[in-house]
């Protein structure tokens, strides 16, 4: 029999209702796995004590309501360390917030609590979600469960490793330029970045506010959908959330027209990964879907635009961390010293780098050349995608250019930034995007998972789930 911690949300929910095991047994299985493997993986920054009242309440709800109880009731989840849970520390992987205790629940946490979900712990991440490997955490890197010499991706690498190693049934992460989808690809999971505004960010520690979205990391497309549906919706506490039906509804086709921008894949993509991508496309074609060549020329500039806009927003958002009201606080001679000392010692290298970069692209001599140009490129990119969705239902490419890299391999900042080359486009356009496992490539005797990436028009998450499920089926998963 499959161990309880290895179940999916859907499997565990069914078994809980069939009285095959209790909520307590499911919690214990996950908590025991987390305690056993976390010293090696460093997926969790903190494993929470069991909340006996919440476990009992979830069990009672399942016993009383049966199939009417929410599917997430009694399911142990892992939460990225930048999502606030009242009374718990939320450090965003930074020394700056090492002792910061959340004073309220993020809206997604409130919704999950209402559904009866349980929280196993808070997961490691690149500091303030800046990075693609989880190596920029102030609390040490997370290891990839598929090969512990390699990174799990990032910035939601702790959430990814926790689910991939079966320490949690599923997890939430946040995605600003690929921080859910890239770690999902590197650890063999499904990761969704919802449409901009689909999920409330009230209680998410902000990084790039025109880009950030919270989303699920899960073992299956079905689980990703369950979690997404539980957290989505308009929220009066986040004015950027959007109502259902804001964008034109699109029917889900039986046979998809899959747009592939082959011009983007000509160089820089690992050969084995490319071969697996092409084979996945062939399987979809065999299943009756149509492949269409599309052109998205502005994509070539997308990452450059992203690395202008994102640091600009980072430098603005992180200005609030000044050592005065909360967080890391060092005192000097003057008030200015208080700011300088707190910020300089509270932030890690990558965070400082991006604050400086953001300050640069927003400074008066350079804002035209960089920021406004990047913003214009973003609009052109969005229009190119809208046009592509006239003839394609969905856009497909690999989630990452290569499989998970070794710890310490990408020591210069730019090579790390290039990890986001495919994923950042969906944050720039705001469109929803899903990474689904598409197989493995072998490196040094280890099988490393790789992901296939789909982008859909705004609010067409359902399209992603349907095609994502088709990819799972075609692989025989």
């Amino acid at each position, binding site marked *: 029999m499959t161990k309880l911690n290895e179940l999916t949300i859907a499997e565990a929910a069914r078994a809980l209702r069939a009285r095959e095991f209790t909520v307590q047994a499911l919690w214990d299985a996950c908590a025991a796995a987390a305690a056993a493997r976390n010293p090696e993986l460093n997926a969790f920054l903190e494993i929470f004590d069991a909340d006996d009242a919440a476990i009992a309440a979830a069990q009672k709800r399942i016993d009383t309501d049966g199939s009417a109880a929410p599917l997430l009731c009694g399911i142990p989840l892992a939460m990225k360390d930048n999502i606030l849970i009242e009374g718990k520390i939320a450090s965003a992987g930074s020394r700056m917030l090492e002792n910061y205790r959340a004073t309220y629940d993020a809206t997604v946490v409130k919704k999950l609590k209402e559904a009866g979900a349980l929280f196993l712990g808070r997961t490691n991440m690149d500091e303030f979600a800046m990075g693609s490997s989880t190596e920029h955490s102030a609390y040490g890197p997370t290891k990839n469960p598929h090969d512990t010499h390699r990174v799990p991706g990032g910035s939601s690498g702790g959430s990814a490793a926790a689910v991939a190693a079966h320490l949690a049934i599923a997890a939430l992460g946040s995605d600003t330029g690929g921080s859910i989808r890239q770690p999902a690809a590197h650890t063999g999971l499904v990761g969704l970045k919802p449409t901009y505004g689909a999920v409330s960010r009230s209680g998410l520690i902000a990084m790039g506010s025109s880009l950030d979205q919270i989303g699920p990391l899960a073992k299956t497309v079905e689980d990703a959908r369950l979690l997404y549906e539980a957290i989505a919706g308009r929220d009066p506490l986040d004015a950027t959330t959007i109502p259902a039906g804001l964008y034109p509804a699109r029917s889900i086709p039986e046979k998809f027209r899959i747009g592939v921008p082959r011009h983007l894949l000509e160089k820089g993509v690992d050969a084995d990964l490319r071969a697996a991508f092409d084979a996945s496309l062939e399987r979809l074609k065999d299943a009756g879907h149509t492949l269409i060549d599309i052109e998205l020329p502005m994509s070539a500039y997308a990452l450059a635009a992203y690395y202008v806009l994102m640091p600009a927003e980072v430098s603005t958002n992180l200005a609030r961390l000044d050592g005065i009201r909360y967080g890391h606080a060092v005192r000097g001679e003057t008030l200015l010293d208080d700011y300088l000392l707190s910020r300089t010692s509270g932030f890690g290298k990558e965070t400082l780098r991006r604050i*400086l970069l953001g300050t640069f692209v927003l400074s008066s001599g350079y804002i035209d050349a960089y920021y406004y140009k990047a913003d214009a490129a973003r*609009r052109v990119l969005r229009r190119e995608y809208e046009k592509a969705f006239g003839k394609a239902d969905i856009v497909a490419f690999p989630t990452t250019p290569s499989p998970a890299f070794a710890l310490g391999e990408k020591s210069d900042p730019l090579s790390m930034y290039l990890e986001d080359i495919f994923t950042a486009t969906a944050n720039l356009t705001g469109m929803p995007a899903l990474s689904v496992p598409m197989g493995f490539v072998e490196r040094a005797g280890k099988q490393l998972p790789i992901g296939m990436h789909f982008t859909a028009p705004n609010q067409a998450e359902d399209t992603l789930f349907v095609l994502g499920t088709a990819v799972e089926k075609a692989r025989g998963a």
Partner: protein
Amino acid sequence: MATAEEVKKLAALARISLPDGELEKFASEFDAILAYVGQLESLDIAQSSAKEKPPLRNVMRADGAPHEGGVYTEKLAAQFPARDGDALSVKQVIRHD
């Protein structure tokens, strides 16, 4: 391109103080990053798209009392690095000397 002096100026604007040795390192990393994002300069984007109205507009909620006064005071004050009752203690900013 970027000099240590420029990075120092940016750092001051961002309320960060870096030792001289690190300024050089940041400056050289900046060069690589700016060379990459600098490819945007070669883009010829029509003025119309540069001045397009943003697709989203700001949404304000009606003024009102979202919660009872004082219910968060203790939780927030507990986060203060230094407090005097319910007040946040900070250095004197205006000097009289």
